[in-house]
């Protein structure tokens, strides 16, 4: 059983929504990534999206793009990221989703990328510039390796296309809460109810919501409507601001805990 299925099944049992933090691998440097992954787990992360940096990201906002540039400047490569996952996997069962632009995987060879990723304990790929239409060329390799390919659904996606994407999805579906690029926003669209109902009607897979979620209040709102809540830019911001702080990992852990708390059912 894929670790992702296991986690969502357990959370469902407990009536919890998943907290899914995004972290750019190699940011601010390669040495920081493993300790940061541990901090995410201690804070209560259920699934982790590990960003594979690309020189020319189109879907990312300024925060994540800057972190990617820095990670590349620090010498981050796909094989080095796999090495970090291998170390992480020796000590944790938290699912890892590799999140990154298609070209580095394509250039490495999608079959080899999927095989090598599976070997070190990766659970899924999320490739934002590989929509379901083009995904056919990567799906066999990823499936063959026993991994999932997570697809995105946008507010602009019309209903028949929602069905099409859901029919091709695996692991979970990722609903983009806002138009445009990634980045923390002050208000998360409250008009999520209808589109999420539409996605839920089209799939039995869990649905995670991301783009622009940064506060526990926002997490609480979204957690009531979806099986998972993704926090990206706000976390990368926090890491960036505390890059040299002695208590960086501690701060990250606390932040993750504060984001996870509202996703748990109230206990009396």
């Amino acid at each position, binding site marked *: 059983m894929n670790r992702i299925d296991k986690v969502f099944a357990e959370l469902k049992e407990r009536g919890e929504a998943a907290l899914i933090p995004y972290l750019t691998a190699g940011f601010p440097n390669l040495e920081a990534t493993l300790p940061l992954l541990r901090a995410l787990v201690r804070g209560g992360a259920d699934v982790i999206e590990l960003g594979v940096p690309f*020189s020319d990201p189109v879907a990312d906002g300024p925060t994540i793009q800057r972190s990617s540039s820095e990670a590349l400047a620090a010498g981050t*490569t796909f094989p080095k990221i796999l090495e970090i996952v291998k170390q992480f996997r020796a000590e944790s069962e938290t699912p890892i989703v590799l999140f990154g632009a298609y070209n*580095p995987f394509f250039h490495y060879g999608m079959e080899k990328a999927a095989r090598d990723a599976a070997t070190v304990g990766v659970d899924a790929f999320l490739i934002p510039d590989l*929509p379901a*239409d083009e995904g056919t060329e990567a799906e066999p390799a990823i499936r063959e390796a026993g991994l999932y390919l997570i697809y*995105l659904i946008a*507010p*602009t*996606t019309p209903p028949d296309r929602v069905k099409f994407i859901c029919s091709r999805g695996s692991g979970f579906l990722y609903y983009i809460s806002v138009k445009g*690029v990634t980045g923390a926003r002050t208000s998360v669209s409250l008009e999520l109810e209808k589109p999420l109902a539409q996605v839920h009607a089209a799939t039995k897979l869990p649905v995670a919501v991301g783009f622009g979620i940064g506060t526990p209040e926002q997490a609480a709102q979204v957690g009531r409507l979806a099986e998972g809540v993704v926090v990206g830019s706000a976390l990368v911001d926090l890491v960036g601001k505390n890059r040299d702080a002695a208590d960086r990992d501690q701060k990250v852990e606390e932040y993750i805990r504060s984001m996870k708390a509202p996703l748990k059912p109230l206990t009396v």
Partner: protein
Amino acid sequence: MQATETYRTTVPDARGHFGIFGGRYVPETLMPVLIELEKQYYSVKDDPEFQKELRYYLRDYVGRPTPLFLAERLSRELGGNARIYLKREDLCHTGAHKINNTMGQALLAKRIGKPRVIAETGAGQHGVATATACALLDLQCEVYMGAEDIERQKLNVFRMELLGAKVISVTSGTSTLKDATNEAMRDWMARCDDTHYIIGSVVGPHPFPMIVRDFQAVIGDETKEQILEREGRLPDAIVACVGGGSNAMGIFYPFRADLETALYGVEAAGFGIHTTQHAATIGAGQVGVFHGAKSYVLQTDDGQITPAHSISAGLDYPGTGPEHSYYAATGRAQYVSITDDEALEGVKLLCRTEGIIPALESAHAVAQLVKLVPTMPKDSVVVMNLSGRGDKDVFSIAKGIGMNL
């Protein structure tokens, strides 16, 4: 270059693929927008009213048809084996072929009810052509330009502003054309409701390579008619420079099924194709996915995009149009490259023999004639696409030949 493909004249397919190339490698947010744009384009493209309007502006505003000029002195200078014709795109309004595309796409934007237009620009030529069409058609225009390019191309920034466009400085990545393109795509993702993105070349996700090709194909359509009138036969070869490749695709496309006409795309070899300072995407790049399409791309061993170099800003791009990659992989066209120094010699040659200052981009095609024509049999006919005039480049040309203006 390493892929091989079987050549078909009916590309792209329904999903925007040219063989293994092309496609739509974009975030889901853009997919519905691209699908919608494709639908709208198909409905407008064959509408006689739209075509009539476009023809009107191309004739009375852009100045089409552009002449096909027999360059007699250049032909003699290169040994007399071929009669060399120049397709004078440099005589278009704004000084280059770029306006063919921006005029068509601005009319398209108007038709599909998008009051706001965005564009990316490197040296500023496409930005100026977009600002021009938007001024004419009363569309709001914002142009993304790398901060570094803004510094290098102050005159064009001023031109765009004079034409009523807003120039937005891009400071991400390398602060050049590729980053301006990333930023324009991001803008479009957030504002696709009221905004049309006029991409500047036959690049990007489907349907852009097809739309830009179709609007530029007027170059090849006219050329075919003009050469048949002058020579009574098709040319033996067509030569055009390739960065993104819109002027080349524009003149190649109507000849795609005329296999007796050899097609030569000329890439920029910069300091040399074996250095790291060049823009020979097909000659030295590998298949990759960049700016929404699969095509040849300059990239590192880790699949990161590397900056290109050329003395000509218009060829200074690490990607190329997917249809060019397809022509290369199928052998329909041959792609060669010309260094900065050879291009500068090309400028001087055309100035001296024909009294025309070519754009540095087009000078790459001139330099290729110097290599090609002497190898051709007597009585050959060659057409070179003179894609733009060189007034914009006089400072770069002076610097390149060691003069200080």
